[in-house]
């Protein structure tokens, strides 16, 4: 069990903002690495917290067609799918501050709206070549303000806690999807 009762209740409140269905596609393998197992369990538990969420688990070794479909090269990998694939990928366990990013992204994908400013959208529409962004983070990254932070990785389970962080509205998610 990755999420505690109190955490589940808080997450339910955040996921209540979801508007349309989102599918979480998780990739692991038969002999799961530490964080593969944690990530899969986390996604399965998360999916149970909202009727708008579903989860699909694939094997990185056996499900070659799915690997090609989502263009993945490493696990644990988690893909968020709305009415289409927005290109959002989480590699490694989204724990600590990144768990807040995951929740935010779930709500964002469910709204089918990145929440980006009009000016940003205009600039992005002008792009003529594909844009690939990789944001490297660690579970304890304190430089990114988040609305809430969850410490759920087993590495930190001994000191599990959560707190609410204020976040200026200009700090939206890092995931930019080209139009």
């Amino acid at each position: 069990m990755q999420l505690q009762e109190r955490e589940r209740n808080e997450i339910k409140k955040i996921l209540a903002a979801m508007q349309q269905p989102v599918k979480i596609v998780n990739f692991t393998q038969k002999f799961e690495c530490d964080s593969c197992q944690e990530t899969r369990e986390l996604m399965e538990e998360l999916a149970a917290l909202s009727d708008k969420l579903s989860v699909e688990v694939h094997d990185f070794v056996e499900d070659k067609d799915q690997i090609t479909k989502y263009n993945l090269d490493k696990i644990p990998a988690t893909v968020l799918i709305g009415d289409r694939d927005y290109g959002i990928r989480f590699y490694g366990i989204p724990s600590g501050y990144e768990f807040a990013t995951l929740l935010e992204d779930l709500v964002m994908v469910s709204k089918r709206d990145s929440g980006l400013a009009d000016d940003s959208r205009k600039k992005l529409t002008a792009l003529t070549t594909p844009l690939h962004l990789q944001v490297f983070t660690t579970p304890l990254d304190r430089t990114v303000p988040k609305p809430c932070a969850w410490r759920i990785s087993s590495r930190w389970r001994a000191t599990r806690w959560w707190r609410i962080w204020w976040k200026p509205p200009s700090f939206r998610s890092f995931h930019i999807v080209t139009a």
Partner: protein
Amino acid sequence: MVEATEFPQLSHRYGVRSVPLTVVNDKPAVTGALPEAHFLDHILMAIEKGEAT
């Protein structure tokens, strides 16, 4: 999102020293968290730079 400690080879390849580090089209480009408009400008600059080389 890439969890830097879980993929040390990738972190090494891009020279991740502090997080968040944003890699734009395979080249390290933006360090730290920036407001959206500022962040996007850095990304666009990195794209231009990448296309020029």
